């Protein structure tokens, strides 16, 4: 075992395996930490404990059959995964969907973004030791969203709601009322989070200037989503490469200043506010019409390939689909945001305390279902 020799103190480094069973590794992530007392000298992530071979499965499923599998990638934001996948397939098929379906997709995707950010907020506070209280508050709010989804599509976690060429079911007036109610309910709650955690002095002390991710490094590591914006890069696919009807809706892209853990957290809190704005506008301008276009049960794309990416709560979810003229994709690659976001972790945790690695990991909001696929 190698040792570090400081002036007159001699300490031996020791290895500690954090995970795959650990309360705060957000799933089955294993971090091999080299510790010098409380200070981290090295960190090697080991992933793949949740590998289900989604890409191989996709080669044996028709395009519609694979939609339920995308639910299980990022199981906190299933709707956004559904959306990314069906839009990639629609791009491959050159399919144009109805205007109402587009608005519904935006409403649903933003609702799920709030749900996902709520979990990120709660678990991050939990990681910093605010034991369970913010997490329960977040789950209380998320429950409202999940109830809405339950009424729309009949399931509470794995929605399977988006379809190639539209959505599974229309939004009834009753559900739209519920969503409006939710917006009114949610706004003061975000202010409560600000009071309870965001500006709490202990929380600030724990998360400010921890895990600082510089702009250049974030871009070089292909970090995306709130983590990239936390580093001060104003980049949001909804603004910069608008899909669906995002270009008709008005919203801001919140960015952080220093790129530390607190900035990443704060970007998520602000994004929840912006998502509420988006939903409000989308409901107001929701047009009438069909929610699906008539397509066959199976889809036969021509021999072509396409790459399409959407802004997921965790970053940019990309699907690289190769069609060979049959009803099955020849190759389907899932570019999951958490995978690239996690890759930067070993760089950020050098020479910080062991308590901070939990903070950095929590602020990245990685999800193992998506990393391991």
């Amino acid at each position, binding site marked *: 075992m190698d040792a570090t020799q400081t002036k007159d103190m001699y300490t031996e480094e020791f290895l500690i395996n954090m995970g795959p069973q650990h309360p705060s590794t957000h799933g089955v992530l294993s971090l091999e930490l080299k510790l010098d007392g409380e200070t981290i000298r090295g960190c090697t992530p080991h*992933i*793949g404990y949740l*590998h289900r*071979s989604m*890409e*191989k499965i996709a080669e*044996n*499923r*028709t395009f519609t059959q694979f939609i339920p599998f995308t639910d299980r990638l990022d199981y906190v934001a299933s709707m956004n995964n559904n959306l990314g996948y069906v839009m990639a397939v629609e791009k491959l098929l050159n399919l144009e969907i109805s205007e109402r379906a587009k608005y519904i997709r935006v409403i649903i995707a933003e609702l799920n973004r709030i749900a996902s950010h709520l979990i990120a907020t709660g678990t991050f506070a939990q990681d910093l030791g605010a034991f369970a209280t913010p997490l329960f508050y977040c789950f209380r709010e998320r429950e409202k969203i999940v109830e809405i989804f339950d009424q729309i599509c009949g399931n509470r976690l794995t929605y399977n709601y988006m379809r190639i060429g539209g959505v599974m079911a229309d939004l009834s007036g009753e559900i739209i009322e519920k969503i409006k109610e939710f917006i009114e309910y949610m706004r003061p709650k975000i202010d409560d989070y600000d009071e309870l955690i965001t500006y709490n002095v202990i929380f600030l002390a724990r998360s400010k200037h921890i895990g600082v991710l510089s702009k250049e*490094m974030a*871009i*070089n*590591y*292909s970090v995306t989503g709130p983590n990239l914006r936390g580093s001060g*890069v104003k*980049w949001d696919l909804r603004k*910069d*490469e608008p899909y669906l009807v995002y270009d008709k809706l008005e919203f801001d892209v919140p960015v952080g200043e220093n790129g530390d853990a607190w900035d990443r957290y704060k970007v998520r809190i602000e994004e929840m506010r912006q998502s509420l704005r988006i939903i409000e506008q989308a409901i107001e301008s929701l047009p009438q019409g069909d929610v699906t276009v008539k397509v066959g049960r199976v889809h036969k794309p021509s021999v*072509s*390939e396409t*790459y399409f*990416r959407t802004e997921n709560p965790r970053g*940019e979810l*990309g699907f*690289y689909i*190769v069609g060979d003229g049959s009803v*099955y994709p*020849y*190759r389907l*690659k899932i*570019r999951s945001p958490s*995978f*690239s976001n*996690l*890759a*930067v972790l070993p760089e950020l945790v050098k020479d910080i305390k062991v308590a901070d690695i939990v903070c950095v990991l929590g602020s990245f909001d990685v999800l193992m279902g998506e990393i*391991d*696929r």
Partner: protein
Amino acid sequence: MKKMRPDEISAIIKSKFPQVTEEAGTNYIIVPKESILEVSQYIKNPPLALDNLHCITGIDRKEKIEVVYTLYSIGEHHGVTLKVNLTLEDLNVASVSAIWKSANWLEREVYDLFGVIFSGHPDLRRILNPYDWQGYPLRKNYSNPDFIAKPRM
């Protein structure tokens, strides 16, 4: 600056590197595997400034394996797709992980699932599969007793 179209980007690259070609009917740029490093080096910096290596994909075309690099530029809002064709006999290609750090894990994934060897990679281990796994699961001819393909309809 005006957003560049893919064909403009490929024209710039082609004028600089005569050895690259364009895939028929698409704007994918096919780079010979010897020159991937210098092409990467060039497009990383301005004028193209493709600073974000978004995704690396392998595609098993049975007689060859394609490695697809999807690149975007955060500042300039444009993107390009590079392709490197590898024959099954010689699955070596230079690693670009020194140019884009994100390539580190993405290349490990392609190595893990397709068996493409990225020479010059700092840490080429399997990433999703266990370290002692045999075979490359996303090859079309992969077989394993535990893997049962769903019967096609």
